[in-house]
């Protein structure tokens, strides 16, 4: 289940890269949106019924628990809306097929990274996926290639990069505080939560808050309001986890 | 007894040699043969034989100050240990007297410069004063850190750092040497703080303060500035030389380090120009930054060893 939701966009990106056609792009996006929605609802139902919590393929790196599934559902719903809106958004612009393909690939990668962040069970892996979202959405911002878009893209990339660098400092401080527990899996951190030195935990929380907060509060996105909401949800989830 | 005699001979004769070596190094880098290393001594004798011209706009301060400055520098020289032995006047807390006696001498040279009524000298005096202002707190911070580390309140603590500080000892010594070297450049008015060879009035700092002096007064001012550099060089040498050395070897090491410092100053003078005025302040402030680093390293080191 979780493997499908993660591997599907990668395969779709490869296919789209080699076959460049507008219809295929729209189709791929809508297909992925439907797959995403279906899988998240299925995971939600399974979670309630059977308590399945990890995948066979990726091992313990991705897991679904009661916090994850909520955000995954929200992401699915919003992405479904975006995918359907996308078709008519592109009808009015005449960009070439190639540009449209790159645009769709970027959206697919963006949602892939978002999903990866939500589903990941390791703090370091979440951080890597958030870097990937910066990359993907920077291309989306610069899509129109105007002067305004360039300025927005520069500001976005720079501020996001500083944000994730500060969040990385927070992660390092957390690992200083955990001392002998040598892993950043959320499960291990929950289980050993009493052994973490409180000073380092608080310090790392502040750094991660500031870091992901700068990345999140950016309203300059030319992609509009939707991406902002998505990011808000994503990062709010990370706070909840850390301020356990 | 022998040590005290050697100490006094060193203090009285080496300033000429120091300035002579600096000039010889500069000549070497410029491809000239240069004057002999004893030339400052011959200049001193020549100036002593001349008569003095004293401006009529000055008062007794102008006549008094060169002797007072020179006396303060000699007194400060008595406080500093040379040749790995105690200083001639050594007591606890002597570094405070050292700093303020030097400041007294500098104060008198400043007001003598302002006494002449010439605006150039006043300008040089104000610049010189601002440099010294930046140097003094840094010097106190460095001395306080070193004294806190080694527990000895005299200047002997400079040699005793390694015994009491463990792994940070070498680091603190290197940083202190660098900071005291900057102080030597400031107090001795050398490049990059002040160019002793410039003749343009807008760029002179120390030279312009002594523009009106002549004859024996000028002789003692030059002697005094050389002696100031020797004193600060012996502080640096005290930091570098280890304590267990026998007397003979410590004499050789001391004189060797003083020569090397003179050669370094000469090389710096040949390679760099004097910095722009705003950049000079940043350069001098580097000494304060390094002194803060020394202070924090001291505190870390004392924490580690349970101070």
């Amino acid at each position, binding site marked *: 289940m979780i493997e499908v939701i993660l591997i599907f966009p990668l395969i779709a990106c490869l296919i789209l890269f080699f076959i460049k056609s507008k219809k295929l792009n729209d189709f791929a996006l809508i297909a992925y949106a439907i797959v995403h929605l279906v899988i998240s609802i299925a995971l939600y139902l399974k979670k309630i019924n059977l308590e399945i919590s990890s995948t066979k393929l990726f091992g313990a790196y991705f897991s679904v628990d009661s916090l994850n599934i909520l955000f995954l559902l929200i992401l699915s719903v919003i992405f479904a809306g975006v995918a359907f809106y996308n078709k008519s958004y592109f009808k009015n612009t005449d960009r070439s097929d190639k540009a449209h393909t790159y645009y769709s690939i970027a959206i697919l990668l963006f949602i892939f990274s978002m999903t990866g962040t939500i589903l990941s069970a390791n703090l*370091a892996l979440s*951080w*890597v996926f958030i*870097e990937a979202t910066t*990359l993907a959405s*920077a291309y989306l911002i*610069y899509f129109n290639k105007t*002067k*305004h878009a*360039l*300025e*927005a*893209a*520069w*500001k976005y*990339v*720079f501020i996001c*990069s*500083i944000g*994730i*660098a500060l969040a*990385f*400092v927070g992660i*390092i401080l957390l*690992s*200083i*505080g955990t*001392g*002998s527990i*040598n*892993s*950043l899996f959320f499960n291990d951190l929950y289980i050993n939560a009493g052994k973490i*030195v*409180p*000073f*380092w935990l608080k310090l790392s929380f502040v750094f991660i808050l500031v870091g992901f907060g700068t990345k999140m509060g950016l*309203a*300059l996105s*030319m992609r*509009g309001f939707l991406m902002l909401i998505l990011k808000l949800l994503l990062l709010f989830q990370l706070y909840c986890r850390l301020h356990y | 007894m022998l040590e005290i005699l050697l100490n006094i001979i060193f203090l009285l004769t080496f300033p000429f040699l120091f300035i002579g070596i600096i000039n010889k190094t500069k000549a070497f880098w410029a491809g000239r043969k240069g004057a002999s290393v004893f030339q400052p001594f011959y200049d001193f004798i020549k100036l002593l034989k001349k008569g003095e011209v004293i401006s009529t706009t000055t008062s007794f301060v102008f006549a008094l100050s060169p002797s007072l400055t020179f006396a303060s520098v000699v007194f400060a020289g008595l406080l500093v240990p040379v040749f790995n032995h105690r200083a001639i006047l050594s007591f606890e807390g002597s570094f405070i007297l050292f700093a303020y006696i030097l400041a007294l001498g500098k104060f008198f040279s400043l007001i003598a410069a302002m006494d002449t009524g010439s605006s150039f000298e006043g300008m040089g005096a104000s610049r010189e004063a601002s440099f010294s202002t930046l140097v003094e707190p840094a010097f106190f911070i460095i001395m306080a850190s070193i004294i806190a580390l080694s527990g000895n309140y005299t200047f002997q603590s400079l040699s005793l750092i390694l015994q009491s500080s463990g792994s*940070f000892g*070498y*680091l603190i010594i*290197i940083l202190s040497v660098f900071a005291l070297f900057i102080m030597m450049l400031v107090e001795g008015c050398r490049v990059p703080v002040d160019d002793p060879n410039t003749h343009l009035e807008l760029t002179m700092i120390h030279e312009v303060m002594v523009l009106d002096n002549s004859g024996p007064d000028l002789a003692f001012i030059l002697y005094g500035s050389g002696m100031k550099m020797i004193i600060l060089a012996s502080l640096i040498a005290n930091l570098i030389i280890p304590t267990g050395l026998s007397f003979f070897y410590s004499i050789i090491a001391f004189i060797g380090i003083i020569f090397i410092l003179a050669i370094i100053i000469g090389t710096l003078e040949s390679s760099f120009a004097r910095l722009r005025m*705003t950049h000079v*302040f*940043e350069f001098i*402030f*580097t000494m*304060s*930054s*390094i002194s*803060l*680093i020394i202070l*924090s*390293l001291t*505190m*870390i080191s004392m*924490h*580690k060893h349970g101070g």
Partner: protein
Amino acid sequence: MVNMLIVLFGLTMLYMAATSRIKAHIKMLSFQGLILFLILFLDEDKTNFINLIFLSIETLLVKTILIPLFLTRILNKNEVFRDNEPHIPNFYSLVIASIMLFAGFMISSLHGQGFENVTALYFGVSISTILISLFLITTRKKILTHVIGYIMMENGIFLLSLSVAKEMPIIVSMGVLLDIFIAVFILGFLINKINTAFDELNICELCNLKDCDCND
């Protein structure tokens, strides 16, 4: 020896704060890369061998050679050599930077809870490097200096991650990933575009989009 290198790293930060010549900044960046490479080698009980090789190649190649080379090429193409008069004059910049360095040392020598399992000097210099880099980013005016400040912050983060490298070597590799990400993305891509679109690399030009005004 490692202590000396770490303090030297701190001193390069002071030099960066005091100067406005961009060439000097770039030289200090490669010097910092060299220092990090030496620290990696001399403190050899930190990681296992293969990881060490990978990290040292990355440090030497990317931090010391490639990124300064990129920056120098951008410098020469745009003929920007000096930062304009920064918002805070250089002297006060130096004062503030030394106070931050001193504060970093002070924090690392605190004898509080939890400071036992971190090497004191690493932590102090890293935190002060990060703070000084953020300070430089906010007070300077040219985009290139902002990027240089960001790379300095990454060097500081790398130093911080070396202090936990023994327990969790994955973190150092993540730091390296961040480095390469920035090198490829910001330097290679956006600076070229900004060159062709704007005349000067001044952030005063980037003032058309402000907060809370949606320009779409």
